[in-house]
């Protein structure tokens, strides 16, 4: 076989080349790392205390002293630092390169945010301190709340939800409470488009609603006619993602909202993709009743390998009275009050209650507010414009190489979607994704949304330079051409990652979820 376009020689064992295997399994800077249970010991500690901590005999532990071994290994500080540093190097991250996970908005995480969140006045404050001693913390919450309300054109905001899915639940519970207050608790159906995030139907079902799908049109948007036809006295709400998960703006959202309202329902908007429109469109102007905002997406708080998130929910005038406790309220004298169970009774009788202990993700609020103040109203508008520009640049640069099912219908918003339609027989989206790993990129979101076969959803975000985009486009084009040409080396990609493809079936069939001491050799032979 000849050398292909990418310079890759498929027949060559690229993993080791001509080199002999190493004794350690390490490959220079690519270091293998054992588990703490294999390298640590229960006698080792990396922490010194001023005090010996002798419990003596007179302790007051209710006779429940833990006298059995716990099995927690310790490492001295140098070992611990090395262990976690080595582990960190097995991760891809936005700090290393473009991270085009569609619908996840992996943008740069400014370090000023981190610095501000660590100010002792924010980091070292207890949630139950007397309100007079936490006025600065409450001011952060209040100031961020004002920004979120203004940016979305909504009436109120619930700050306490812990992540996007928790925010969805908050919005849906507001809707349920509002319906019950109207004596229409019998509305049991929530309509969810096929292209929605899995959290939408899971949330609605969790709150006791029956979920019904709404089909998409051939051009990737909600089928407005089908949706309108389904509206009726049993429909509580519609959950719509805008821009949607195909990366398209739902042009009919205002018309849909009006129809839903006329039929007595509410409109929930999944705000996961708010980054595309911040400063350009306000959801409140489109008739939305509730929308969560992922601070870890649009407002740059770090994803941290799977959280923490933060999911404030902006609410329309109709839903605001039902929002959860606690919340802040600025008084005429500038003092910020905390409205909790005891104070809600008089002024906020319709609240659906508390969703979480304490006040929400304060550490994320400080980061998000720092980000928002850095950008200002003008900068945030530029964020949306550059995010959309970058996505369209990717779409138009690659539509000749990969099938782009909705490209003919006009521009995309913040993300470009491709399908597996023109890959060679036997080649899949997964192969393209794994090929991108070898090119030094995190793959795009794959196989989501479900309405596109073998979907590849690319969201570059606004924090990528043109040079970075050009390199990514070149890499994805190269991998796509290999997949179209039937380059079999792609089937075993990635070749250069810390691990080759992992056996997920084995993991699920025989789950090993915690480390167990290996059986002694003699016992293992039995």
């Amino acid at each position, binding site marked *: 076989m000849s050398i292909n376009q990418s310079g890759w020689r498929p027949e060559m064992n690229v993993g080791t080349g001509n080199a002999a295997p190493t004794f350690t399994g390490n490959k220079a800077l690519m270091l293998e790392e054992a588990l703490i249970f294999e390298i*640590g010991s229960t006698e*080792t500690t990396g*922490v010194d205390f001023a*005090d010996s*901590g002798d419990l003596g005999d007179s302790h*007051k*532990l*209710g*006779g429940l*002293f*833990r006298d059995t071994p*716990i*099995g927690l290994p310790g*490492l001295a500080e140098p070992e611990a*630092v090395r262990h976690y540093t080595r582990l960190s190097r097995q991760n891809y991250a936005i700090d290393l390169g473009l991270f085009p996970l569609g619908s996840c908005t992996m943008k740069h995480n400014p370090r000023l945010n*981190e*610095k501000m969140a660590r*100010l002792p*006045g924010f*980091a*070292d404050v207890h949630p139950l301190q*007397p309100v007079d001693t936490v006025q*600065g*913390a409450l001011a952060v919450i209040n100031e961020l709340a004002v920004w979120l309300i203004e940016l979305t054109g909504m009436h109120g905001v619930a700050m306490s939800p812990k*992540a996007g899915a928790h925010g969805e639940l908050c919005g849906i519970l507001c809707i349920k409470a509002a319906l019950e207050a109207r004596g229409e608790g019998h509305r049991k159906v929530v309509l969810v488009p096929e292209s929605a995030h*899995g959290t939408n139907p899971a949330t609605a*079902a*969790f709150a*006791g609603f029956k979920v019904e799908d709404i089909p998409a049109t051939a051009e990737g948007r909600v089928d407005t006619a089908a949706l309108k036809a389904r509206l009726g006295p049993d429909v509580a709400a519609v959950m719509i993602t805008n821009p949607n998960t195909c990366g*398209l*703006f739902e*042009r009919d959202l205002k018309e849909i909202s009006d129809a839903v309202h006329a039929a007595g329902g509410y409109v929930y908007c999944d705000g996961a993709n708010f980054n595309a429109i911040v400063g350009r469109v*306000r959801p409140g102007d489109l008739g939305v009743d509730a929308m969560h905002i992922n601070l870890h997406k649009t407002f740059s708080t770090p994803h*941290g*390998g799977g*959280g923490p998130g933060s999911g404030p929910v902006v609410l329309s005038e109709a839903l605001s009275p039902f929002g959860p406790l606690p919340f802040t309220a600025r008084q005429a004298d500038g003092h910020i009050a905390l409205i909790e169970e*005891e104070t809600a009774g008089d002024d906020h009788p319709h609240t659906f*209650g*508390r969703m979480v202990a304490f*006040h*929400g*993700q304060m550490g994320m609020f400080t980061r998000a507010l*720092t980000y928002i*103040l*850095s950008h*200002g109203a003008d900068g945030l*508008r530029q964020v949306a414009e550059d995010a*959309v520009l970058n996505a369209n640049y990717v779409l*138009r640069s690659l539509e000749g190489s990969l099938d782009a099912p909705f490209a003919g219908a006009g*521009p995309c918003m913040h993300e470009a979607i491709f399908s597996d339609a023109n890959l060679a027989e036997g080649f899949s989206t997964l192969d393209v994704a794994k090929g991108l*790993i070898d090119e030094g990129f995190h793959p795009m979101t794959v196989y989501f949304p479900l309405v596109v076969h073998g979907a590849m959803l690319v969201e570059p975000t606004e924090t990528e*330079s*043109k040079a970075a985009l050009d390199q990514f486009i070149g890499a994805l084009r190269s991998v796509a051409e290999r997949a179209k040409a039937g380059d079999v080396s792609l089937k075993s990609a990635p070749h250069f*990652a810390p*691990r*080759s493809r992992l056996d997920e079936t084995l*993991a699920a069939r025989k*789950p090993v*979820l915690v*480390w167990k001491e290996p059986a002694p050799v003699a016992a293992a032979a039995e």
Partner: protein
Amino acid sequence: MRYLPLTQTDREAMLGVIGAATIDDLFVDVPEAARLDGPIAGLPAHASELSVERHMTALARRNTVAGEVPFFLGAGAYRHHVPASVDHLIQRGEFLTAYTPYQPEIAQGTLQMLFEFQTQVARLLGTDVANASMYDGSTACWEAIGMARRITRKGKAILSGGLHPHYVSVAKTMAKYTGDALETAAPTLTAETDIDALIAAIDGDTSCVVVQYPDILGRIADLTPLADACHANKALLIAVVTEPVALGAIRSPGEMDADIVVGEGQSLGVGLQFGGPYVGLFGCKDKYVRQMPGRLCGETVDADGRRGFVLTLSTREQHIRREKATSNICTNSGLCALAFSIHMTLLGEAGLRQLAAINHVGAAAAAARLAQVPGVELVNDSFFNEFTLKLPVEARPVVRTLADRGILAGVSLGRLYPGEDALANGLIVAVTETTSAEDVETLAAALQEILA
């Protein structure tokens, strides 16, 4: 704008490739009536790093910092010393700026850490397995109640009066919508917990009993008889631990046969942060693992036979099961789980036991000293690092007065249980390794003065 790399030249060149005349052409799908034609009026424009820093620092200065005053608050969030290396390591960009490990070949760092975290948590809680974290203790507690409903197919949960009132509130909120019946009670200011009353309340309809250990007043009770009573009625015992350091000194709920153990992991590695983000711990018996909420990391091998880790059993989860998922949780608390795990690794078993002992010894000394203040009674016979005092007057105004004198004295039960007159004189006091003997003396002296 320092976070936006595109130059005007880039933008024009890219519009050219796209075939659009202006950026507005890319927003054509937005209905005209809803288009904003410029930055939203009335909001400030972009700002330099220096000026943002000044603004935020000024806000931060308006808070009383826990570490700068005698400080005794607990009740679900605890101030511990976090080793410097923890914060350094979690700020490595490869951890901080990674996503949920959907592509395991380039996320082994996060995945191996989660596998280690799950093992540490399971061992600490005494459960067979643990998941990769929840949002916090209160939501983990709610999820456990829902899980018990799915397992037992019964819908009556009995919540101990010793369960943190915010956790009770969260459970009540959710129960309104899921149809679970919750039996709840306020705690009583006595040395005895409500274990006997809970045992008496269990019947054939009970899905679970939820008990906090140590409880909101700091009391510690043997959970074994309660577990037996639950199991005799085919109900599950859910134990809630809000102070994981305690499990370095006292038996784990799992050892006492609790079926599900949930907790707030904030004490290790995370810091107070005015209530969040924190990290929910969630462990259970092996046989219930497929009803667990949240992400699970599991061991497997790669195509070359090398050990590796993946997210697994995802058929429980929302992105696969959609409306049939065990929970709607997606993003959880990965970075806080990392902080917890690093702190736990630095401590090790020996360090955890020493830390726990220091906490208990300090708390015992503080309890004895504060009980000497005329009119003040110690409610607890048993406690770990937190106990409840009964003052001769309502505690809430006392806490406010002490705050004015620069002492953060604890959490008044009046704050946690508004309207419960029988609890109004209660004050929960927490003492950790960060509390000095001088702090205790300062509090005792001030309390004596105020109560005189």
